[in-house]
């Protein structure tokens, strides 16, 4: 039987989102990979948004 190994999934170490590579170091096998949104929040390049609904 011809079985192909699935490529390892990479997840953001902070929010568990699936990502292709670490947004900070660009490495696809980064042990502490982080997504773009979490990088922006960690570095103050963006601020966390409140709920979109009006409460």
């Amino acid at each position, binding site marked *: 039987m011809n079985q192909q190994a699935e490529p390892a999934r990479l997840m953001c170490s902070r929010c568990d989102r699936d990502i292709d590579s670490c947004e*900070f170091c*660009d*490495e696809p096998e980064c042990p502490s990979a982080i997504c773009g949104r979490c*990088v922006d929040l*960690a*570095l103050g*390049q963006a601020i966390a948004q409140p709920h979109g609904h009006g409460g």
Partner: protein
Amino acid sequence: MSPRAAWRLESFGFTDVYDYAAGKLDWLAAGLLTEGTNAERPRAGDVARRDVPTCHLDDVVGEVRERVAAAGWNACVVVNDQSVVLGLLRSKEVQADGDLRIEQAMRPGPSTFRPFVPIEEMAELMVGHNLETSPITTSDGRLVGLLFREDAASAAHGMHRQSESNSGGEGS
């Protein structure tokens, strides 16, 4: 500043007032002057080395390697004619086959960071990710400089020492 703040300044009698429509983050990202207590903290744009060598997509690795080494560097930022960052050669890519065009050897579209990012946060992530260099750019992608991990860590360490010294050595 916001339009309301601009109008308020005019009400104080200032006559040369502008509304910076792109917003405060864009102002900071361009590395423009700021004031206040927070402005005294060192940031990525202050610590990044601005004399980083640059090259273009059509350059050849061998020629770039010689130029970079002669300047005492082991990294080079790939830019276009508008100084927009298109790629990066870290030490590994600088050592690639000398006949390759830069476009073939570079790390394309590297993650870039804004000049206003506090140096402690950059240092922490660069050390944690074992990242030797990070390009610092404006929000429209223009090169400001190249931040080295050891420079970031050293600046962050200096900040902590300064902060401890200002608080009379508490907690040491």
